């Protein structure tokens, strides 16, 4: 167990392209940090730099109180779970779990004890003597996590571990990972592009865009007070409506803002509301419906309860205090 400190780290590839720049994060012991962002935002590169699979061009990475910049991955006391599981196909599940320990010359009895323990935690006992080929996706993912657990490392690193699973299994495994991390209290860094996964798993979220940090905070902080238009549009589903100030004039207190953000669930129909929306499309989700429309040339989405007859145009009002205001040029939040 250990804290992890990233101090102004950056990655420049040999061609001169910058993938990550000026990233500083302090991760407390036992904390679950999720790196989230669209593809190509540098989140995987960042994780791989912590793991030691990519060299660090700038800054320092500390695990515990050791600077690990020039250490081999095996010496960093971390364990990693890969997207495609990366199980050794020719070894049984038991051998897969034991391989890392064997390389560290752990005594045989200790290996057996830890493998048995991990198998019990993850309920993979019955498969210990099978080859990975004979396992389903979810079981393979469990084995991959088992391989991380048996090492009893200072930190777990997860690289989009659930992306290869089907939607239903993903939800189950998400809960299992959260539960597991709570029980083991191991510092974890988890990379995903799925904002829902990020929200549900994280103690703190790190939203990345273009190799830089947009915002760090607890899921609720990030949801309630997105620091920029990028975060506002990325976190939350359906995404926050971001409309130009000019499209909806006369909203009180918005004169100095360039962009106004309103969450779809914060909009409600009101006969004398200030926003007039022309309805373009409706998505029925069962319990509720998403109504897409436009006002003053800007797209707008509203979450409404289903079952009500919809007119051609809707007049809308927003919940008081639910407006998010952003600067015109920088897109930063105005408080």
């Amino acid at each position, binding site marked *: 167990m250990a804290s992890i400190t990233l101090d102004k780290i950056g990655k420049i590839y040999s061609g001169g392209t910058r993938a990550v720049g000026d990233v500083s994060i302090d991760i407390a012991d036992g904390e679950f940090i999720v790196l989230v962002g669209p593809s190509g935002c540098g989140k995987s590169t960042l994780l791989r730099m912590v793991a030691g699979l990519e060299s660090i061009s700038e800054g320092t990475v500390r695990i515990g109180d050791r600077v690990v910049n020039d250490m081999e*991955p095996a010496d960093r006391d971390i364990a990693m779970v*890969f997207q*495609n599981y*990366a*199980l050794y*196909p*020719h070894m049984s599940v038991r051998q897969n779990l034991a391989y890392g320990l064997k390389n560290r010359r752990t005594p045989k009895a200790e290996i057996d004890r830890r493998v048995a323990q991990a198998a019990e935690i993850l309920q993979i006992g019955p498969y210990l003597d099978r080859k990975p080929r004979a396992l389903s996706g979810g079981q393979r993912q469990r084995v991959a996590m088992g391989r991380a657990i048996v090492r009893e490392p200072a930190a777990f690193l997860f690289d989009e571990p659930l992306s290869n699973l089907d939607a239903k299994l993903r939800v189950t495994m998400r809960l299992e990972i959260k539960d597991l991390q709570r029980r083991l209290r191991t510092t974890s860094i988890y990379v995903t592009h799925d904002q829902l996964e990020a929200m549900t798993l994280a103690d703190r979220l790190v939203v990345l865009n273009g190799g830089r940090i947009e915002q760090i905070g607890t899921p609720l902080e990030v949801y309630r007070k997105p620091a920029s238009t990028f975060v506002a549009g990325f976190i939350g589903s359906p995404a926050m409506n971001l409309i130009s100030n000019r499209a909806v004039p006369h909203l009180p207190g918005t004169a100095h803002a360039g962009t106004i953000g309103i969450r779809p669930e914060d909009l409600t129909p009101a006969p004398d509301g200030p926003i007039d929306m022309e309805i373009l499309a409706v998505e029925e989700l069962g319990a509720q419906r998403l109504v897409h429309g436009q006002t003053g040339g800007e797209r707008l989405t509203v979450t409404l309860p289903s079952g009500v007859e919809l007119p051609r145009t809707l007049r809308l009002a927003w919940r008081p205090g639910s407006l998010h205001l952003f600067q015109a040029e920088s897109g930063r939040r105005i408080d």
Partner: protein
Amino acid sequence: MIENRPGLNLLAHLTLMLGVVVVALPVWVAFVASTHTATDFMSGTIPMWPGPHLLENYGRMLDSGVSTSGMPPVGTMMLNSLIMALLIACGKIAISITSAFAIVYFRFPLRRMAFWCIFITLMLPVEVRIVPTFQVVADLGMLNSYAGLSVPLIASATATFLFRQVFLTIPDELTEAARIDGAGPMKFFRDILLPLSRTNIAALFVILFIYGWNQYLWPLLITTSSDYYTIVAGIKRMADAVDGLPQWHLVMATAMLAMLPPVAVVIGMQRLFVKGLVETEK
């Protein structure tokens, strides 16, 4: 092509049968010849059915050989061939798998050039460079030795290229997982790469064993002592009887015997062989 017309089926089968006949007939003739006496072939008509002298002919070849043409018994030549084929096959596999490992997994200066240099040797088989190679082997004093028979044939661009392709299909994550699991390069090679390329090694072994076994020109050139005659080159020497008629029945018996080890290797390793050539999932 999925068609279900009896006429086409018949045609396909006839073609296949014709193919089998074309391939099998010479073998059959050789077998028949090995069961007759020498005089039966001088009569003008070649017999097409086995004669009564099978045990006698094979017994003679295995036991004493044809001493008149300076031949050792077939057993010795078979053993020489076996040693040469095994040395070539194992040597080629060992050298090419390690060089492929170096080329795929290590970043060193001139890596690409090293690869292309290996690749270019594809254009220089033994037959092309046979005179200089003979000179080198002679200067090293390796004439009439197993090393001389096998070493010049061991370098193999094809096998290196094959292993390179195999290694490239192994996902990077597996390499990274092994690094995190604390496996150094050699451990990774032994614990992950070798087991994963097992079937490819087997397939290559079959091909290379037959390649080695069938070597003709090179052994013919560098062996002058009958202790190192190989079977394939030996057959040729036997057929070249100087004073007198070639003993066709004995030559054919030797040819039949020479075919057995490659056949045994193919049959014994058939399953791995096919798997190695077909399997893509890693």
